[in-house]
């Protein structure tokens, strides 16, 4: 099978995030970056699919020089090849990114494409679905179980308080989330091998964004509340406060 996995390098979830001096960007200088945690499930599922059906896993990432790190991690886990769609544009608009990815993936004879369900950072969770829609192939988001066979796939996607079962022909796009699989750690051997695998760099120019960042600010700080008391003795007063002061019970 011809398998693509789209990955993104994102700020570490533990990183302190500082608003840039212009008030509409993030100061990225001090931020450690990692492979998007949801993309780990996508890479793992791509590798499992290859192990079952044979073929090749291509890791694709769009972004500046830093994007190559996401491809290297995917390769260290086991992806065969990498494609780096290189641009220094800010790429904050999911439609702008989706159009470029669809243009690059379309016509490649792909059978399945995996994405993480969203990238921590921007948190839009749109690009995988946009790519599928533009390629006119089915997309299933937030997949929690998946069975791929020749020409078709079935599985489940999560909804509030349960799941939906689906069936789809291939080619198709899947966005992955926690619970789908247990992503493997890149082995030392995998990391060494990744250095020798090819990354094809394609310079790209994105369409003008339709979604524009006007301002980035910090959320209002929650002020520290009160300690009602210690142990079980505090319970009657807690309940009274929730009823009479906060009025939430």
């Amino acid at each position, binding site marked *: 099978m011809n398998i693509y996995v789209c990955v993104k390098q994102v*700020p570490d*979830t*533990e990183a*302190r*995030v500082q608003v840039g001096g212009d008030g509409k960007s993030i100061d990225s200088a001090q931020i450690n970056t990692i492979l998007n945690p949801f993309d780990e499930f996508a890479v793992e599922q791509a590798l499992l699919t290859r192990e079952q059906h044979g073929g090749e896993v291509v890791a694709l990432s769009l972004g500046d020089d830093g994007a190559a790190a996401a491809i290297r991690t995917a390769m260290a886990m086991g992806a065969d090849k990498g494609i780096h769609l290189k641009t220094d544009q800010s790429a904050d*608009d*999911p*439609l702008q990114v*989706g159009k470029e990815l669809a243009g690059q993936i379309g016509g490649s004879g792909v059978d399945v494409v995996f994405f993480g369900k969203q990238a*921590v*950072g921007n*948190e*839009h*969770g*749109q*690009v995988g*679905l*946009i790519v599928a*829609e533009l390629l*006119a*192939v*089915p*997309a299933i*988001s*937030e997949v929690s179980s998946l069975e791929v066979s020749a020409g078709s796939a079935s599985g489940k996607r*999560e*909804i*509030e*308080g349960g799941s*939906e*079962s*689906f*069936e789809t022909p291939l080619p*198709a796009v899947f966005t992955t*989330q*926690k*619970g789908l699989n247990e992503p493997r750690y890149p082995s030392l051997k995998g990391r060494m091998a990744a250095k020798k695998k090819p990354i094809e760099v394609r310079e790209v120019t994105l369409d003008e964004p*339709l*979604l*524009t960042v*006007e*301002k*980035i*600010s*910090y*959320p209002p700080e*929650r002020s*520290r*509340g*009160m*300690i009602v*008391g*210690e*142990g*079980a003795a505090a319970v009657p007063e*807690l309940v009274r*406060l*929730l009823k009479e002061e*906060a009025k*939430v019970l």
Partner: protein
Amino acid sequence: MAINVLVAVEVRDGELKKSGREGLGLARKLVEQAGGGEVAVVLTVDSAAELPARLAAAGADKVLVALRSEFANYCPGGFAAAVAAACANVSAAVVIIPASALGKDLAPRVSARLGAPAASDCIEASFADGKLTATRPAYGGKVRVTVSFAGEPAILCIRTNVFDTLPADSSRNAVVQDLPVELGEAELKLKITGVERTSGERPDVSEADIVVSGGRGMQDGENFALLEQLAQSLGAGIGASRAAVDAGWRSHGDQVGQTGKFVSPSLYVACGISGAVQHLAGMASAKVIVAINKDAEAPIFKVANYGVVGDLFEVLPALNEELSKQS
């Protein structure tokens, strides 16, 4: 300038989700800020029954009913086609879609079909000086990003439990129209073949008005029985920290935080949760936070309105008993 706003509402088991009324509340506010216009709803169902009247009472001027047998379950391509057709029908300047599992799946499809910009998980939106802006949390809630939109319609996927609903007004009337939707092979390739409920009677953590949540301090999955009992008496949903999910005590669908669900309940009770920054990302927008933790220095107390320092295995049974006494 007048603007028309379209709201895509979600119906499950014949019932209108509350998120639809929240969407209507926002739509009415935007129309008012813009100086007039119409609020329309697109209803994608296999049977409309009383829904149009309820939508009128919740703020709709017009209800477009896309009635098809395929719409008994979520039909991704079909729903996207219906929303696109409804947009054209009412010349919508803004489309509002709930950021539910269904809406988060639907909004990007509509965006791609219409070549229109979409902002996910909006918590604020307003129309001023002829321009729509929306604000959404990003970087795990560490910052808020305000965006503007070029071209129409602007698609707002809105976080549930955040926007105010309007009081139901049964004297309001709406124009109800059939919306024909042409479905081609492409729209029907993907089939949703069934829906399975796993949470029982309990509301999902992302929809619940009260959430009780357990972390590492619960020590074992079986101890969540204490939270089950609390949730039962409060009508609450049950959440969990990443530590509790990774330990296998709860399913990942319950996880609250940056790599789980984002929740905005009116009350969030954190039990044995230290308050790692990734967890706070998922629940810091709750209206009232209660923390029960034996470590007085735990970061969760920095965001909690009310804290109880103590062993949750003493505090929770006492809380369950106190609530049963009062009910």
